[in-house]
């Protein structure tokens, strides 16, 4: 069997999206975590910024990442005709 060019394009766009979201994930967790001591003097919503990020901000961003991925992939599936039949 042979995949069409359209299929390959779908996969490339999926990889791009996945890669982009992973970069956000990495920055939010590890870059912010690495500089936690330098960021603690900033204040955000009444919290020290690094504490807020680890206790709340990061989770909310994770939730957005996962939701955004599901939304984009639904659209991408339809656009490239690889979506499942509606049940």
């Amino acid at each position, binding site marked *: 069997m*042979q995949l069409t060019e359209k299929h390959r394009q779908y*996969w490339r766009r999926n990889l791009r999206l996945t890669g982009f979201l992973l970069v956000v994930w990495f920055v939010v967790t*590890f870059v912010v975590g690495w500089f936690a*001591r330098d960021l603690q003097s900033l204040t955000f919503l009444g919290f020290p910024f690094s*504490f807020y990020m680890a206790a709340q901000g990061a989770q909310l961003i994770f939730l957005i990442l996962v939701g955004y991925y599901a939304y984009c992939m639904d659209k991408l599936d339809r656009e490239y005709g690889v979506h499942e039949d509606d049940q």
Partner: protein
Amino acid sequence: MAKPTQPRFVSQLKRYYALYTGGFIGFVVLLSILEQMGVPNKILGYIFLGMTVLLYAGIGILSRTSDVSEYYVAGRRVPAFFNGMAVGADWMSAASFIGLAGTLYLSGYDGLAFVLGWTGGFVLVALLLAPYLRKFGQYTIPDFLGARYGGSLPRSIGVFAAILCSFTYVIAQIYGVGLITSRFTGLDFGTGVFVGLGSILVCSFLGGMRAVTWTQVAQYVILVIAYIIPVIWLSVKHTGNPIPQVAYGYVLEKVTAREQVLNDPTTPEGAREAEVRAIFKQRQSAEEARLKALESGGKTYLAQEKNKLVKADEELKAGRDADPKAIKAADNAVKNFPADVASARNAWRTMAEADRVKAGPIAAHAEPFAGPDEATRDKKRKNFLALVMCLMVGTAALPHILMRFYTTPTVREARHSVFWSLFFISLLYLTAPALAVLAKYDVYTLLVGSSFSELPSWVSAWASVDSSLMSVTDINHDGIVQLSEITIGGDLIVLATPEIAGLPYVITALVAAGGLAAALSTADGLMLTISNSLSHDVYYKMIDPKAPTRRRLFIAKALLLGVAVFAAYITSLKPGDILFLVGSAFSLAASAFFPALALGVFWKRANKTGAILGMVGGLLTCMVYMYITYPFFGVNASLWWDINPISAGIFGIPVGFAGVVLGSLATDAPDKATQVLVDHVRYPNLERDIKTKVA
């Protein structure tokens, strides 16, 4: 039973669970009326725990099944929303429910590694695994390894790793079940374990994944209500705002201000704290002197010390008007005196360490990686990030979680259900840091500075139940409580919150039921993973592929029973520290599974040799590092780059990736059929224009 169509099924589910939630709230209200009428607490505790356990068993009986697809993957028709709740309950264990807020209370910012790790891992699940595993659509995780890499060796390694990490994890859960049942019903620990186990078994034994799924949804509802109600109350008490996640920024500010006052010896309160700390400092020096004398004097020194105690005890008894309490204390001192040099060294070292901590200033709650010098801070930062990494990758590799994504009807629903999972998990994980800060505020302002003659009632109640959870001693004999005089065990925070907030006993029983739901739901999922690996992967796929359905299910159920009894037996031996058990399960899963699973989807070139090399290499690296560095095993080798044994996965994961890549490149590319399989999992629906067939 005729299967209704999916939309009808979903609306039925919504109706049932809405009724159930309403019924549960009604039940709590009814019990609180009973409490007002004077029904004793112990009876209320029994009714509460008994009713919830009966409920789980009832759902198990209603969902009994003898259909293979129902037994292994709940018929693949669990809607995204409900699968999210089930993952939430599967995911949140006794450690999350009871331990997490306590860890945050005790270690402040540094404890947030668990919050970050246990939520961020779901990003990896969503992006790298869940949709592809759903499209693959078999029954277990070793199934995927077996089909993707071919041959029974990758599958066998998968089975071994799945059992190893699930078993490590399940022991921690059963331990939690025993602890809660024994504390709230007065049964002893062993009986508690077996009663809890009975209810786990009724559920998964009859209905497999189907029963476990619908029970987990019910358990999620109970555990989240139980966790959030007391925290809302506490938040209203201290801030007037019923949304603790928003309100606690202001409380954290006040806690930080309190920390500064208590650490500053020029203020009256700070001066009293300093006085107590100086006493601990003296004790610490005395302990260290004793340790030094032990090293040089050995056995003779130990005997001398014991003689001194015996003599003091005898003198006390000979005296005319000796206080009976003092005699008892002296008797105990003789009785508990360490028997040999090694145990004396351990006991005294622990005491010196405890005193050293008490002699130091209060660590700031919001400060990341606090430490006296740059080296300590740097070490803490490295360990924090390593732990976060291990927990995240481990989340995306634990078979009992990944298995749940086989149960949704479509790939699309699998993606959505990761979102709902993270949503339902976050409800609890956003509340835990708020609870820790609110409880700390309560202790720092209401308990510190109060007089020993009128302690808050929850303090004396818990101090009399278990002194390792709560104890206050007037070290400097001024009759006033100082912060350094309070010792709090982490588990206390969640267990005592209802009393700290001034809620009736019913809510305490509710929290116990929530903790039990958390432990049972996770244990259910884990035991099913273990027995499915054995019955499906080992028996059906490797020993007897022609086995009829009835025999397969019979074997699955028999193995479940065996695994449960064995796990309960191991638990009753009370091995190790719970947090270490849980953490090591994550490191093991991360090193063994993640590289082979992720590269299996994203890199077509990955082949059998690579997978074997990566899985064995990762797992071995992780196990060896734990073995040589965790004190329990007694090797005590020096740490690599100061990384604690709990984060052993930080070495296992790269070794796993390197193994897969090098092993694959050194040997031939996988065959055509494997490449077709990879394409099959990458596209939600390829049949539209191309026909693929996958076994």
